[in-house]
């Protein structure tokens, strides 16, 4: 992105040129390179956990029957969706909290379990680089980040040369691991102002979002489902995850403005006496300020700025290439998906056709056999017809003609004397009719069979099958994005080196800038002319407000596409999770997410309680997809969702959740990682990577 600072300031100045000299306005708004610090273009980096292990001992306490049972838990974790299925209160959440502790230094493990865990080993990768965190928690924390993979704690002592850093307290570790992840994912601390916590101090201090704050966008705990993002600084997290242009200057200038506003209020309460007392310092300060300005000017003139434009241009070109490539890849994947689903459809039809053919063949055979049986039956009937009963097979007595005549007359059997009914007399015509009916039936079956055999289904199947193969081949033939990525990393690191290279006179310059800030601040603070100073502050506040507004507008214009795509992805995910009543999602200039439900625009808080978790999961999934599909944003592509089904487990939701998880695993399994803990056993067997603990059993 190209940003012309001078032009920006001049335009602002021209709106009200008499209030403040242009040079002073430039000074007020000057943030150096930081105007162009943000880019929504993805770093392409992702965090993947490879293995979590921990050791310890279940020490018993009163009323608890743990007999110092040792804990040795280790779990390999794969890319894609990983599901832990275990009953509630059996240790799933503890595993996630242990992971959080390792990744952030913030220990929120339940106190009783905290005592049990003595060593934690967490291996993870950022792109192709592996790291392992080792925490010794038995006494006070000792934490080390290692390059590479450590399989077991026995290796900790042997790999000291691989240590990136070691920290010996939770606070130090939190800071070091924050630096590490901020650096990896180009995060920085977005600031806000707040009153100092000490009651006797009338000061406004800066506070900033930390890695722990941003981690709330990774670890979604079920208890937080009532807010879209975590805590009061949620919009800061959202902005950081999107990395939209001007986010840093907007934040910085807003903080400055808040400080000035506070100062204005404070000055208003200064007494006359204080003003006169400080008046004499004014002249001194003014003089010193002039000296400093002069020296800085000298230094700056000697300092030839390094031209990084070419690198930036190449960087942007590469990003564009990668985006093009990704688009191509996604299009190809969509084609493979379509081909596969067509194949599945054709296959289904073919199978039902084959089974129908099989059925018809069997039915024809059966009918043939039946016809043959009946034909034999009638002919055997003929063979044995017109035969006289001659002898009783039991007593060998001859059956006399007289007896036979009597039997014929009385319609009884001449041997057993039982009555003979019409049913006992075989009527050949009746059977001939049966045979002819069966023949018609068979002819119809044969007709059906012929029709089925002529069906072109096999040709359709061949075509669909070939299309799948062809699409897969073309997909695998796509040029590799690795070279581009590699070059991107190079350019990026060159840029970073260039930016952080100590320039000649840098340290002196920094000293002067720091002193100037102090002097300027004191001048402003101690202005003898209260009315004039307040006016001055008002003017500055006015300009800062205008600058922030202008930047906001520009940011919104530049990011329109990104936000629109994100909103579309969110809607898609929300609907897949079963919230079809939401028909539109909008993201406002101030980063409020609005949902259209039943014709009304509502905020996250207004969504029914039973539906908020879904909206939330949809939000994060779509942020990750934004990165994967469009190369925008800075989410780590790693999520932990604890108990996604706890409060909303109605059938539609569960089906939607299963479908979404399955689809995500299938489509993006190799590009993101999601850890899910649930007590909901209906989520069993929806993905490959699952760790099922039997009912009532503990995970560790």
């Amino acid at each position, binding site marked *: 992105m190209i940003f012309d600072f001078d032009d920006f300031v001049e335009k602002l100045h021209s709106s009200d040129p008499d209030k403040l000299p242009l040079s002073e306005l430039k000074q007020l708004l000057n943030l150096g390179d930081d105007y162009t610090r943000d880019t929504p273009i993805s770093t392409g980096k992702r965090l993947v956990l490879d293995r979590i292990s921990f050791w310890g001992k279940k020490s018993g306490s009163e009323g608890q029957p743990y007999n110092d049972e040792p804990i040795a838990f280790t779990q390999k974790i794969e890319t894609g969706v990983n599901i832990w299925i275990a009953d509630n209160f059996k240790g799933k959440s503890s595993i996630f909290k242990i992971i959080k502790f390792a990744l952030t230094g913030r220990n929120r493990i339940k106190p009783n379990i905290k005592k049990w865990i003595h060593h934690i080993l967490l291996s993870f990768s950022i792109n192709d680089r592996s790291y392992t965190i080792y925490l010794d928690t038995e006494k006070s924390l000792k934490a080390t980040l290692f390059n590479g993979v450590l399989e077991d704690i026995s290796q900790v002592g042997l790999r000291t040369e691989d240590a990136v850093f070691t920290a010996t307290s939770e606070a130090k570790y939190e800071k070091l691991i924050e630096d590490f992840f901020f650096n990896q994912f180009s995060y920085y601390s977005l600031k806000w102002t707040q009153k100092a916590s000490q009651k006797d101090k009338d000061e406004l201090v800066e506070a900033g979002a930390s890695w722990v704050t941003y981690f709330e966008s990774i670890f979604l705990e079920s208890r937080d489902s009532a807010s879209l993002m975590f805590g009061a600084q949620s919009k800061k997290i959202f902005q950081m995850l999107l990395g939209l242009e001007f986010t840093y200057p907007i934040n910085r200038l807003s903080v400055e403005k808040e400080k000035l506003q506070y100062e204005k209020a404070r000055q208003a309460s200064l007494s006359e006496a204080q003003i006169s007392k400080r008046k004499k310092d004014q002249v001194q300060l003014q003089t010193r300020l002039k000296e400093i300005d002069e020296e800085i000017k000298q230094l700056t003139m000697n300092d030839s700025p390094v031209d990084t434009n070419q690198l930036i241009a190449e960087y942007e070109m590469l990003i564009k290439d990668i985006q093009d490539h990704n688009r191509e890849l996604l299009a190809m994947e969509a084609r493979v998906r379509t081909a596969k689903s067509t194949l599945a459809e054709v296959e289904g039809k073919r199978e039902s056709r084959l089974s129908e053919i099989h059925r018809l063949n069997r039915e024809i055979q059966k009918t043939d056999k039946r016809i043959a049986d009946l034909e034999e*039956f009638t002919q*055997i009937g003929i*063979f044995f017809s017109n035969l006289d009963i001659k002898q009783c097979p039991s007593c060998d007595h001859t059956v006399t003609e007289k007896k036979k005549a009597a039997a014929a007359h009385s319609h009884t059997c001449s041997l057993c004397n039982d009555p003979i009914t019409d049913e006992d007399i075989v009527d050949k015509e009746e059977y001939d009719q049966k045979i002819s009916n069966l023949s018609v039936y068979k002819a119809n079956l044969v007709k059906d069979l012929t029709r089925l055999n002529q069906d072109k289904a096999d040709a359709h199947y061949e075509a669909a099958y070939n299309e799948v193969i062809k699409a897969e081949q073309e997909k695998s033939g796509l040029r590799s994005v690795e070279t581009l990525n590699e070059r991107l990393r190079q350019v990026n690191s060159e840029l970073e080196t260039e930016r952080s290279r100590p320039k000649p006179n840098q340290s002196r310059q920094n000293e002067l800038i720091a002193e100037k800030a102090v002097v300027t601040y004191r001048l402003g603070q101690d202005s003898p002319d209260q009315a004039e100073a307040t006016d001055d502050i008002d003017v500055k506040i006015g300009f800062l407000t205008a600058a922030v507004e202008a930047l906001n507008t520009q940011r919104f214009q530049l990011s329109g596409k990104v936000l629109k795509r994100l909103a579309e992805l969110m809607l898609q995910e929300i609907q897949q999770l079963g919230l079809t009543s939401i028909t539109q999602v909008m993201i406002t200039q101030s980063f409020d997410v609005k949902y259209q439900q039943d014709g009304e625009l509502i905020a996250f808080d207004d969504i029914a309680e039973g539906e908020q978790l879904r909206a939330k999961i949809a939000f994060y999934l779509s942020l990750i997809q934004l990165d994967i599909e469009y190369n925008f944003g800075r989410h780590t592509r790693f999520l932990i969702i604890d108990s996604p089904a706890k409060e909303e487990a109605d059938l539609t939701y569960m089906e939607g959740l299963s479908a979404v998880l399955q689809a995500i695993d299938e489509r993006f399994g190799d590009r993101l990682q999601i850890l899910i803990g649930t007590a909901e056993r209906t989520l069993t067997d929806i993905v490959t990577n699952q760790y099922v603990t039997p009912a009532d059993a503990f995970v560790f």
Partner: protein
Amino acid sequence: MDLDASVRNYKDRLRILLILYFFGEPIADADRPNAVRIFRTETRIQKIDFLIRNPDYLAYELLLIAKTDPALRPAIQSIVLEIFNNQEPMFRRMEMERFFFGAYEDIDDVISFLKSIGFIEFSSKKSSDFKTIGKQYFITRMAEQKILNQLQQLPKLQWYADRCRLIHQYFGDLSGTQLKVAQYQIDEYRNTSYNKFIGTIEEMTRTEFLNLYAAEL
């Protein structure tokens, strides 16, 4: 009686009559002026009946003969081919239960019927423990006339006569016990437990055919 049972009943009558006739030996006995042929032992009826009702077993046993007698191989090849081409193992199969001494089905009713219409005469002896032994069946002249004159006019029944002649050609000299021994060579038959239907050996026959003639059935 339902139709299926009637059909079965009719078929049983015809089959048993033809077995007695085609496998009986001519006699001239002054004590039995009506008798033209004599057939000995019920076991033999049962074993021959089994071969008629299970064309796959017949084909298999024919193949066993062909194995030991190369001269018969071409003739047996075409017989077995025809049996399978006509899908006889499926069309002609009438399952038979295994009894204590092999395939057996109660044929007393059939014999009684044939006797009541004067087609056969029948004699037996009682052993010392009152078991009926040494059953002899005499085929009367009337039955012979009926078979010679009328059977030819009923095309659907020709198969039975042809099949009897075929079995007679290859197995006619064997007694009931010998036939039983031959059938016992076949695993499926031997391993069928008491009171269970004897299963098909179509696949085994196909394999045997392939081994012998290097061609598929």
